[in-house]
């Protein structure tokens, strides 16, 4: 496609508010201070399963500055669900502010509100909780037993509705292959922990909540329902967010902060410690996946079946939905005539698992990409050739949802990547090098896709309101929650591009439920695709309205008025110009009209975002360490509105993907249910030394609906990285490891096993 030359779209202009961030001037929620502000600390329980039968809070009250001590005995019994992101959504509704039934080690059993953090903390320590202990089911195996202790009244197991297309059981092909994959729990590791400020105004009865969230309207509905307040009196303001990766999609600590603010008619703040962030917010699910496929001799896939078992932790929250969504994502990459997915969610007496970047794509893609890499090997086919035979073409039907995959370029991702990474040459070289020696090298690749909208899981709309100010500058209100990745910058570019004005003249505000039109929340990688369309349409409509105003002033008809660089003029009098500023002033002073426009768009499609990752690793057979030597990601993004920040996102995906594949895991003590890692000391991540100078390539052929052709990138970047790394390690060692993470001990064990097998063979 011919690329049009734009002013701002597709230009690398850094991030919105980068100046504020490099000078430390930007205020995150936890940086807010106000006179009289109170602080909340929570107390963690000390049993994995049981009941609170008593609470002695007398010691806590003796600490100076204490304003409130909350336990299950003096707080409402009302149920809510952290995972509910809209007022109309159904959810398991299993959580209370403080439940007498304790379901995991470290669950909050009490909270103190005091004048300082220190006082609140000291008072928490002085609360004495008396427990009755129940037998605990810490592992999924224990929780699945018939005589397992009941964590919830309805039992511990939730079966998702199977996702089915075609008839897997009846289909047949020459090769049947089975594989298993496992993903451990990880922490999102947003650098900013959870922070919430809530202020209740006694006079007006209004509640304002500041939070670096992903779903302001969803949080508002949960708080309004929980506190029995009209939504109009609850205002949720999204603050600058220090990273989320899914953990800030859910309403974790807002109910407690809001309750305390209302109860005390005060301004309260709660900031999680890292330990609380790991144990009391949420982790990424641990998942066991079983794949079976039927494939023809020439490599054509006939059918695939996946069974997934997710550990939800102590509360179901989003897990049933997450588990179903995984099945829905089965048909996004390959043309497979017969698909079947069965998902089971198991509650255990462990810390809660929940929303994580890519919402199921990461898990399901890991399972089938590990699988296809094994199948290709069985068939003696190159993994890229195998995929080229099976991937979707543009506008193929995506079977699970009956929408098309849109204008997607799976083939091109594979072919471009193969060439740019010099896949064939590297593969050959690695094979030659691996005959002996301490170090083995390997290459691996994987393919993925993801969403650009939440349609057609449910309807998806975007709303925007744009107002030309009386100096010609522009304010755009859009229900956006920037995760830090540059979505506000993208919206500013879209608006400035349409209005043909300087980027500095455009202000895009992040979501504030008291002024913004409705938004579902910035998840499902929908921000650019839907909200971008809304901003674009809103600005286009606004420009037409301004054109009509200019026609009045210039004594002409709108159809004869041209617009260029922020100025209107009559076609036949190009020298007489009317600026936006003059137009706005004329509108207000003479015509009595404000130049504003609201626009709504609804999603008609949900284009896929093909994404291929290629990687080369060096495995040290003495230490079991894996070094990622080089890697490349190819992304069909439609159009990169912020190419610089898209590259940054790719890097983030590689870094997190390396963590998932090679080192990150939050382990739980199988005996006590205690979360064994609650800090960074023992939590390995890929750092500046580990992450290679990766390459990123973008395919920009443009989507037909996305703003300037843009689709999404924020989540898919991480998805193909773990299976590609798994493949590379297996390629280096000649193994079939699929139980993640592939830590040095796992690798050394595999090498040992291999040597034993070899000596047996001799």
């Amino acid at each position, binding site marked *: 496609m011919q690329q049009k030359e734009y002013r701002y779209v597709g230009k690398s202009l850094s991030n919105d508010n*980068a100046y504020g961030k490099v*000078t430390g001037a930007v205020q*995150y929620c936890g940086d807010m201070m106000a006179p009289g502000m109170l602080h909340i600390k929570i107390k963690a329980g000390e049993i994995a399963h049981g009941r609170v039968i008593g609470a002695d809070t007398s010691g806590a009250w003796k600490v100076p500055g204490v304003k409130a001590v909350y336990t299950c005995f003096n707080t409402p019994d009302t149920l809510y669900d952290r995972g509910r992101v809209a007022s109309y959504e159904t959810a398991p509704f299993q959580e209370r502010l403080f439940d007498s039934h304790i379901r995991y080690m470290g669950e909050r059993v009490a909270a103190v509100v005091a004048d300082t953090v220190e006082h609140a903390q000291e008072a928490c320590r002085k609360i004495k909780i008396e427990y009755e202990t129940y037998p605990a089911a810490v592992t999924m195996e224990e929780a699945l037993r018939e005589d397992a202790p009941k964590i919830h009244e309805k039992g511990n197991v939730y079966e998702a509705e199977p996702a089915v297309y075609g008839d897997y059981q009846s289909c047949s092909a020459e090769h049947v292959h089975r594989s298993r994959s496992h993903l451990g729990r990880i922490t999102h590791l947003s*650098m900013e922990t959870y922070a919430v400020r809530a202020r209740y105004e006694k006079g007006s009865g209004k509640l304002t909540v500041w939070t670096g969230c992903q779903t302001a309207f969803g949080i508002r509905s949960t708080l309004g329902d929980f506190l029995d307040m009209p939504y109009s009196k609850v205002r949720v303001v999204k603050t600058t967010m220090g990273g989320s990766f899914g953990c800030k999609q859910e309403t974790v600590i807002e109910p407690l902060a809001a309750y305390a603010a209302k109860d005390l008619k005060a301004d309260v703040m709660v900031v999680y410690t890292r330990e609380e962030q790991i144990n009391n917010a949420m982790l990424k699910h641990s998942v066991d996946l079983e794949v079976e496929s039927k494939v023809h001799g020439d490599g054509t896939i006939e059918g695939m079946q996946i069974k997934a078992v997710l550990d939800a932790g102590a509360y179901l929250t989003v897990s049933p939905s997450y588990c179903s969504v995984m099945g829905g994502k089965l048909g996004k990459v390959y043309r497979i005539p017969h698909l079947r997915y069965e998902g089971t969610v198991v509650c255990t007496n462990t810390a809660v698992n929940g929303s994580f970047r890519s919402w199921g794509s990461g898990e399901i893609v890991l399972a089938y990409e590990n699988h296809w890499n094994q199948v290709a090997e069985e068939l003696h086919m190159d993994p890229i050739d195998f995929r080229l035979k099976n991937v979707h073409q543009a506008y193929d039907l995506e079977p699970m949802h009956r929408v098309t995959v849109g204008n997607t370029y799976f083939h091109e991702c594979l072919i471009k990547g193969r060439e740019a990474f010099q896949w064939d040459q590297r593969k050959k070289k690695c094979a030659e090098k691996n005959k002996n020696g301490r170090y083995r090298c390997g290459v691996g690749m994987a393919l993925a896709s993801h969403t650009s909208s939440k349609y057609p899981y449910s309807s998806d709309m975007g709303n925007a309101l744009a107002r030309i100010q009386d100096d010609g500058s522009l304010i755009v209100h859009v229900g956006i929650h920037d995760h830090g990745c540059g979505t506000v910058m993208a919206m500013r570019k879209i608006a400035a591009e349409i209005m043909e004005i300087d980027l500095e003249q455009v202000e895009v505000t992040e979501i504030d439920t008291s002024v913004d039109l409705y938004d579902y929340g910035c998840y499902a990688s929908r921000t650019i695709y839907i909200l971008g369309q809304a901003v674009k349409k809103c600005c286009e409509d606004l420009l037409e309205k301004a054109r009509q105003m200019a026609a009045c002033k210039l004594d002409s008809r709108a159809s004869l008025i041209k617009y260029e660089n922020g100025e209107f003029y009559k076609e036949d009098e190009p020298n007489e110009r009317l600026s936006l500023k003059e137009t706005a002033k004329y509108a207000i002073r003479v015509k009595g009209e404000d130049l504003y426009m609201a626009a709504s768009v609804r999603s008609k499609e949900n284009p896929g975002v093909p994404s291929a990752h290629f990687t080369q690793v060096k495995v040290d057979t003495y230490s079991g360490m894996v070094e990622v030597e080089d890697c490349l990601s190819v992304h069909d993004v439609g159009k990169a509105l912020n190419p610089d920040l898209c590259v940054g996102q790719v890097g*983030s995906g590689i870094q997190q993907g390396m963590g998932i594949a090679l080192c990150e895991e939050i382990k739980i003590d199988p005996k006590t249910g205690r979360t064994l890692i609650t800090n960074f000391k023992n939590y390995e991540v890929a750092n*500046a030394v580990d992450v290679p100078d990766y390459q990123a390539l973008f395919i920009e052929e443009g989507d037909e609906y996305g703003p300037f052709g843009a689709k999404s990138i924020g989540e898919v970047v991480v998805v193909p990285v773990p299976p590609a790394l798994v493949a590379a390690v297996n390629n280096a060692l000649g193994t079939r490891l699929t139980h993640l993470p592939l830590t040095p001990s796992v690798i050394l064990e595999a090498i040992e096993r291999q040597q034993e097998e070899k000596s047996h063979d001799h």
Partner: protein
Amino acid sequence: MIINFTVNGKSVSMDVMPQKRLLDFIREDLLLTGTKEGCAEGECGACTVILNKKAVHSCLTMTGQLDGGELMTVEGLEKDGELDVLQKMFIKKSAVQCGFCTSGMLMSAKALLMENPHPTQEEIKRAIAGNICRCGGYREIKEAVASAAEMEKEE
């Protein structure tokens, strides 16, 4: 306890609690909230400041250690309305995403360049190995530090 120190070039004499974490002192008493808490145990680098020309984790430093010292926080990088070359390069190279690691990252990089104005790629990597960034792949940050060093060389 009364201590004397300089913060971002200004001399200060203050009555402080010497056992208070330097991080809390900076944020709550000096009201400089650009310094962030990420882990409270010196593993993530978000709270990095420069004390006596060395990068330190302010979460593991006590306020008493500030006595007679020279403290620089992210707020002190900009001089007379002009950004430090590192800040300029972080913006130019698009090394800023959510920004929560940025101040610590800048201070680690600043300490490196103060001690070693012409670092190699390897030295840059090692200097920021203790600073976690979750939004990117470190490529932009490494490039920004390298360009800043390059710019200073030219000046």
